[in-house]
């Protein structure tokens, strides 16, 4: 068998470990910290305030527009008293924060965050069931919230946990169904291949070059643009609901439930919930970018042009590889800012409105979208 332990080469393991460590500790965690900063800063400018602008390099007067704030916050979380109330179920109370953080980090394993760097594919696990893997792991993150709500042994967290689990189950359906048309269009479940396809033939929401463009005979993509837009809207909204972000943050709705499922938590355990939420948001944006907006690829078919410029058609030059990583991160950051922008604009939905939207509108819309897409595919790609 090709996966016996002895046959795994040491260098391959080392490369994987480097990829995982760099991705998690150099990319994702700082991004989580700085998206908290971005959240505060964007909310501030939206509300005509200034936002954090003091903390910079310690012991100096350099403030760097408050960029030191996330580090100070992190230190504060670590140093705060970690209080475990007497009435909780200890084991699950300790397990719950980890169970929200771990799935969020795990899902980034299949996201292709760049094309190639020195001949090495920039994805931790190039699975051929990428989107399914993400759904499977993301569906586990509900356990953390449910357990936090239940083990806290008090009313508000419990209601938060109940709300969260029913919300996540409901929106997982529209999330999965809205993705089916996308997979139908690409005929592929491997995220790297999906991105490569978009790099060559136009992003799903921007089919303007390669075979996807109308003037190059891409009539199918022209007609498929409409279902793709529906899929995009349903998918993005469901991601909002899945990550418990406003306008769907009923599980931690401050006005009714104090803080929902993490009411009883303090210090680093609370921080893990907080970070888990932001990590899920980053992964969600990464997934949207990968599926609908071409992942790491540059627009207008510049990838092919730059490859031609570099000469060697087989190997992606290192500068292009870095450029691809930067493109991916740039798109993800733009999406995170969109998430934040929406959060500070829209009021919260009522719970029955939320359920109605999930079950009556999005579920049917996504289902209908599958049929529309399949019909167009039959007509245009005989």
């Amino acid at each position: 068998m090709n996966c016996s332990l002895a046959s795994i080469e040491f260098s391959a393991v080392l490369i994987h470990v480097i990829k995982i460590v760099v991705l998690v500790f150099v990319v994702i965690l700082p991004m989580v910290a700085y998206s908290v900063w971005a959240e505060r800063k964007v909310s501030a400018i939206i509300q005509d305030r200034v936002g954090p602008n003091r903390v910079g390099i310690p012991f100096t007067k350099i403030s760097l527009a408050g960029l030191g704030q996330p580090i100070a916050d992190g230190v504060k979380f670590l140093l705060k008293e970690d209080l475990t109330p007497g009435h909780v179920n200890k084991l699950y109370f300790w397990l719950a924060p980890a169970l929200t953080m771990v799935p969020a980090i795990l899902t980034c394993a299949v996201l292709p965050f760049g094309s190639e760097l020195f001949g090495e594919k920039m994805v931790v696990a190039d699975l051929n069931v990428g989107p399914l893997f993400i759904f499977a792991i993301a569906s586990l993150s509900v356990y953390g919230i449910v357990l936090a709500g239940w083990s806290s042994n008090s009313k508000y967290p419990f209601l938060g946990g109940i709300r969260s689990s029913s919300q996540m189950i409901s929106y997982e359906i529209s999330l999965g169904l809205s993705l089916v048309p996308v997979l139908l269009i690409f005929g592929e479940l491997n995220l790297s291949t999906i991105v490569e396809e978009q790099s060559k033939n136009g992003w799903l929401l921007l089919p303007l070059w390669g075979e996807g463009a109308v003037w190059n005979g891409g009539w199918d993509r022209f007609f498929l643009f409409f279902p793709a837009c529906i899929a995009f809207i349903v998918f993005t909204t469901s991601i909002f609901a899945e990550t418990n972000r406003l306008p769907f943050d009923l599980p931690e709705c401050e006005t009714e439930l104090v803080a929902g499922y993490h009411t009883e938590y303090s210090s680093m355990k609370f921080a893990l919930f907080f970070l888990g939420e932001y990590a899920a948001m980053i992964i969600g944006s990464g997934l949207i970018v990968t599926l609908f907006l071409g992942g790491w690829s540059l627009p207008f078919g510049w990838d092919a042009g730059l490859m031609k410029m570099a000469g060697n058609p087989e190997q992606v030059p290192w500068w292009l590889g870095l450029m691809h990583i930067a493109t991916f991160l740039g798109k993800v950051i733009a999406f995170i800012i969109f998430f934040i922008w929406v959060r500070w604009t829209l009021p919260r939905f009522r719970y029955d409105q939320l359920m109605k939207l999930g079950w009556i509108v999005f579920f049917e819309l996504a289902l209908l979208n599958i049929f529309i897409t399949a019909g167009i595919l039959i007509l245009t790609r005989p």
Partner: protein
Amino acid sequence: MPIVVQRPRLTIAEKCYFPAIMKGLRITLGHAIRILLRKKKVTMQYPEAKWDDHLPEHYRGAPALVTDEHDRERCVSCQLCEFICPPRAITIIPEEIPAGDEWQKVEKRPKIFDIDMIRCIYCGMCEEVCPEQAIFLRKDYAITGVSREEMVHDKKKLYEIGGRREGLVNKWNELK
């Protein structure tokens, strides 16, 4: 009698939320851009920039004791302010002015006059009640300290803040 509130009938555009969401996003984006381009300045960077020059005449800051034009302490230890003080922040222990003093005929002065600034609510009742015009609310507002003891203003500190106030002050004028 119960009042039945008729829910408004929504049009299709309103039902699908989308135009409203876009409108909201446009408004918040407008605010964000206005702040980013510094077309509008709302926040004052507090410790560097202060509002002190714009404080109104009737601003009620920290209470303080004052002396008159002869540097006599105006307070005669009547303890009215101590009684009127709603949070009981003022403690006064009176003392007799010894014979041979220039102001012997005044008879009493405070030996200890403490205002606990943790308790003080800046209501200005002490100023209103004082028959001798000895206590006034000044414009100091940043009263800070690292211990509870530090937050108690004693007589010396109160005179330091209050300083000297000459002549009679009409407390019921337009500004107060």
